[in-house]
């Protein structure tokens, strides 16, 4: 439950930060992590709702972010038949590829280096949280 609150707060903060001072797909990264760690309908619902809010704040077509995120969730779902999503290296790869594609799609910074460093940090955070459980 605490993990749920952590992710909802993170999504909310990401939403504010990435539409003001930090144009980086934080919301997408946290949403993917949220679904990988807690793959429930409630997770999808929260991400869907906040995704719509993000679209409104970024002046994108309302529904574009939830559509891309849900497609990513479907990809994750299909991919877990072939790869082990408990493996953090796989998670990193998923987040990295997904965020990079998302950044290209929604006009975020597409500097490759600016993606590598935060992904390693995210990985460390997830490792810390899950190892405590």
């Amino acid at each position, binding site marked *: 439950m605490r993990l749920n609150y952590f992710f909802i707060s993170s999504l909310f903060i990401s939403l504010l930060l990435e539409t003001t*001072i930090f144009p980086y797909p934080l919301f997408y990264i946290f949403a993917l992590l949220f679904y990988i760690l807690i793959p429930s309908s409630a997770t999808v619902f929260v991400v*869907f709702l906040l995704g719509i809010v993000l679209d409104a704040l970024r002046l994108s077509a309302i529904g574009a972010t939830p559509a891309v995120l849900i497609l990513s969730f479907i990809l994750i779902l299909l991919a877990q038949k072939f790869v082990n999503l408990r493996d953090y290296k796989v998670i990193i790869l998923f987040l990295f590829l997904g965020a990079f594609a998302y950044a290209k799609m929604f006009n975020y910074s597409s500097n490759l280096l600016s993606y590598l460093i935060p992904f390693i940090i995210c990985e460390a955070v997830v490792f810390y949280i899950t190892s405590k459980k």
Partner: protein
Amino acid sequence: MFNMQKKPLIALSIFLVFAILLIVFNSSPVVKLFSSAVQSVFSVPKSIIYSLNTGNNPDDPTLSRLKKENDNLTRKLIDFERTKRDNEALKSQFETAETSSFKLIPARVIGTLGGLSSPISLITDHGSNQKIEPGMGVVSGNNLVGKVGKVGQNYSEVLLATNNSFTTLARTVTNGATGVARGQESFIVLDRVENIRQIEKGEILVTSGELNSSGIGIPNDLIVGKITSVNKIPSAVFQTAKVEPAINFAKLGTVFIVLSF
């Protein structure tokens, strides 16, 4: 840890259909109302976060003074060239001198899009409710900031002059070489300048002005930037020049949208 539901694909597909329906019915009143409400609610926190980042505290006073002096000198140079041009035009009776008085509306910047250090768009707290329309010019002082792109109910996106989607007609102040100014993410390129025209490093580039059928557009004589290098190949038809913007877009707190001119 990975307690997948029994039929997660079906659940995800339903959400996907909802998302697609939202995209399809984007211009419906309900979606517009939702978008407007969200933008209104988030306007204040976004404004606070943005102003904290850009720093409302005054800059170094010496730097501010020098910037002001530089702006004044640039303005005088443009005025001089414009007066010269207008006098010539008056003499030949083809043109009359024109003093533009723009109708401006101030808009607070509440967000950026694009790169971390070099934004390509700004989000302002003015939208269609404040009669903002796509294509309107955006200025800061005598400098061109860009033009309005997408417009929401309470927000609008300003495509900066460095944005890849931004183009406007421009000319050099000293030699009057005309071309098309295009954004290139961190700088501007002056393109389609005839090779026979003279353009030099250090020259100031200003807008030539453009207006659409609705009377919306970018006024002339706004400073686009300064030419930092020229790429001229003798055998080519056109030459290009690299232009550095006159202002730091990332530090803008308020911009002015040109309603009419």
